[in-house]
């Protein structure tokens, strides 16, 4: 199918989505998702799971419309709690926390919220455009991504740790190592041997990301706020900044925006790699490219822009492997597949040709939902930002309750609650004694991706199916890594000379 035919189908699908009463599904779905997703831990995937039995008797069109809206609507609200309360609503929002919350502490919550909403909406649009252009060769593209390519991606992501620990390199490396170790907790993916499980069944499944995030950021922050005697989150500075400043930042850093959106879409296309990796890789790349001019981790607006653009851009991309190959890229797309399969819609070449209209209905619904959440988010940002001026003594208990709900509702296990509070205390100690938390989180997220693909790449090398020393992706990866490290050093040297 040529690009012109695809564009025609895309246009017809857009008209179909905007027609009455079809438009009701994305609008109502988005509103429901936004309301429910304020609770940390409630993601688009949770909403899809709840919606599947309700939609059993529905036709495919409204199902696509509703499901696109539920996935898109839940994303932005996770960023709101991340910026204002240091509670990442979903795992990808963990990257937004890193600079979003420091901005809120500086009284720039409105700026961060404005930037987040604008980057989300525009990032989603970039994702749709990239997806539209890549449909003719998406199956080939996805098939070329194997364990060596994923290994390179994970190592590249891990290298970003080096860029966020400039101030305290040894401590940064130590916490990154600790993050990697924590990511290995659970069963070995190749041998099924239990590692670091302390003889418990609970730890066999590894450390759940959401409870760890909630602990390291939200719980640790509440303890720190109470221990430090601050009156409110934005205590010293009051509420400043503006939504317009935030929106303007996206256009000021348009190069970074495009780069982050592209990273998001490409990572979204890679099967099995979700928004969390997309957001953190984009954050790492933004931090690396800013070099010594950046103040990442301390409230750099680019640290909000990059993960937000990548996280929303990946949504459209992640639909393609699910719909073209039946390979879910995230929990959300996995549930979407489950829903489609219960309705007899099978992913594959047939869906990507004869059923392309349905695919675009889903993509447009997702895009509309992202747009709507951003617009609504902007309109509610003012009152929401006032949360940062509420006295800590009134805010601490609700934040802890919200954090507990987020940690528990993720999988419904009591162990996750203890995990969140355990990591909360550890996070507080790390913050108090100046041990950086960001390398720990990045390594924790990328560890499993690195381990699984290292193991598979080595196994395929052992049986002679790939040669790690001459494999084009590995060679490209080495060049990329050398450039990633050498280019900033070369720039620094040049600046010094001049």
């Amino acid at each position: 199918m040529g690009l012109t035919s695809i564009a025609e189908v895309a246009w017809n699908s857009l008209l179909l989505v905007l027609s009455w009463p079809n438009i009701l599904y994305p609008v109502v779905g988005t509103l429901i998702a936004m309301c429910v997703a304020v609770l940390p831990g409630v993601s688009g995937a949770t909403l899809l799971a709840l919606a599947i039995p309700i939609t059993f008797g529905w036709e495919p069109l409204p199902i696509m419309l509703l499901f696109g809206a539920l996935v898109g609507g839940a994303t932005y609200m996770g960023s709101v709690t991340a910026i204002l309360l240091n509670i990442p609503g979903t795992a990808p929002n963990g990257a937004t926390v890193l600079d979003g919350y420091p901005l809120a502490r500086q009284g720039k919550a409105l700026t961060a919220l404005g930037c987040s909403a604008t980057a989300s909406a525009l990032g989603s649009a970039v994702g749709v455009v990239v997806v539209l252009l890549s449909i003719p060769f998406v199956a080939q593209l996805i098939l070329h991504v194997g364990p060596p390519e994923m290994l390179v991606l994970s190592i590249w992501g891990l290298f970003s740790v080096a860029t966020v620990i400039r101030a305290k390199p040894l401590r940064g490396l130590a916490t990154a190592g600790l993050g990697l170790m924590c990511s290995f907790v659970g069963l070995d993916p190749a041998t099924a041997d239990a590692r670091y499980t302390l003889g418990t069944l609970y730890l066999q499944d590894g450390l759940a990301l959401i409870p760890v995030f909630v602990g390291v950021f939200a719980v640790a922050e509440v303890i720190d706020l109470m221990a430090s005697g601050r009156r409110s989150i934005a205590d010293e500075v009051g509420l400043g900044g503006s939504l317009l400043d935030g929106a303007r930042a996206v256009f000021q850093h348009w190069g970074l925006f495009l780069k982050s959106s592209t990273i998001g879409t490409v990572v979204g296309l890679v099967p099995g790699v979700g928004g969390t990796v997309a957001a953190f890789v984009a954050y790492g790349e933004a931090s690396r490219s800013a070099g010594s001019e950046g103040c990442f981790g301390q409230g750099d607006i680019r640290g909000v822009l990059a993960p937000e653009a990548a996280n929303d851009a990946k949504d459209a991309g992640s639909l393609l492997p699910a719909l073209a190959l039946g390979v879910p890229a995230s929990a959300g797309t996995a549930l979407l597949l489950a829903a489609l399969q219960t309705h007899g819609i099978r992913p594959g070449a047939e869906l990507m040709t004869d059923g392309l209209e349905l695919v675009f209905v889903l993509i447009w619904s997702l895009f509309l939902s992202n747009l709507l959440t951003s617009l609504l988010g902007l309109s509610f940002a003012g009152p929401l930002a006032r949360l940062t001026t509420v006295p800590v003594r009134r805010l601490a208990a609700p934040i802890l309750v919200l954090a507990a709900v987020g940690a528990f509702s993720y999988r419904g296990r009591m162990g996750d609650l203890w995990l969140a509070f355990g990591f909360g205390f550890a996070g507080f100690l790390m913050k108090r004694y100046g041990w950086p938390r960001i390398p720990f989180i990045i390594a924790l997220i990328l560890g499993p991706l690195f381990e699984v693909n290292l193991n598979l790449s080595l196994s395929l090398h052992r049986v002679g199916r790939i040669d790690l020393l001459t494999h084009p992706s590995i060679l490209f990866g080495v060049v990329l890594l050398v450039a990633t490290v050498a280019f900033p050093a070369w720039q620094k040297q040049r600046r010094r000379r001049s």
Partner: protein
Amino acid sequence: MLGSRRNSACPALRRQRISWLVGWSPGGGYDTYSRLMEAPLERALEAEVVIENMPGAAGILAARRLSAARPDGRTLGILNGVGMMLAPYSSSRFAPQLETDFTVLGRIVANDPALVTGPELGVTSFEEFVARGRQQPLVFGATGPTTSNVLLEVALARMAGIQIELVLGFPGSQELFNSLLRGDLDATVVSEESIRTMAGLTPLLRFSSAHGSSAARDEEIPELLGEDGMIARHPELFVSAERAAADAEALSSLLSIGRLVAAPPGLPAELHRCLEAATWACLRDEGLRVSVARARRSLDPAPAHEVLAHVRASRHAVAPFADIVKRAVERANR
């Protein structure tokens, strides 16, 4: 749904919340069957059924939780019967035993896995596959060391006298398929239903269960067993046709255990009886049959006593393979 006019099969569970544990991620076969069964089970029990995905350790985590839950009927789940039979041979000391640690309530469908190859290998029949495998080692992929696909791959290699190399640790069957299409792997064994989701793969042989589901079978895939099966028609493809037939019978019996509905052990007799009846009613529900067919999946229900007979018959079927599986896995992880 709760306001159904029908009487609840289990009055004790009427209007209760029942957790349905699934040991795999959303989107896969076990999750799909669970979601398809949700509504008919709610109708049969007049209760609310809530599906909880609890992936990890090839389903063992959820199985452990199910096994340890209170026997009050408010925790049910779906189990991979073959996986549970293999689990005791794994390195995991947490693996529960199917016969003693659960109350089996019925079977949803029996496993009918098939051997598939990718386009890079360039073989179109099992005969060519065996010939190739006797010349050079073939690379097989699997998700984990204690899964039924590893057992079937290793058993097939022994039967046909082919050399294999295992690559373990793929996150899921779709990643295995992608590796086959890229030519990283030569072959794998997956459920026949999974194969239908992916174009470009060549199914060569089906390991039918003794009482496998016939509704959705692709009749063009040759069977291993039976009068027209590969062993009967082409004994020369096997090291010893007699031994291969015995091995295939054992595997067939094992595969008949299939995907099970289970509850914790120690259910009170009355609750056990009514849950078994409700499960059976749900599995024979016309609405379930229609929705399973619409989802292009198979349904092959069996009552609990029949499943338990398969379990008892298969108890000794796994042991002879345990050693060769262990050795193959150790070699793969060297």
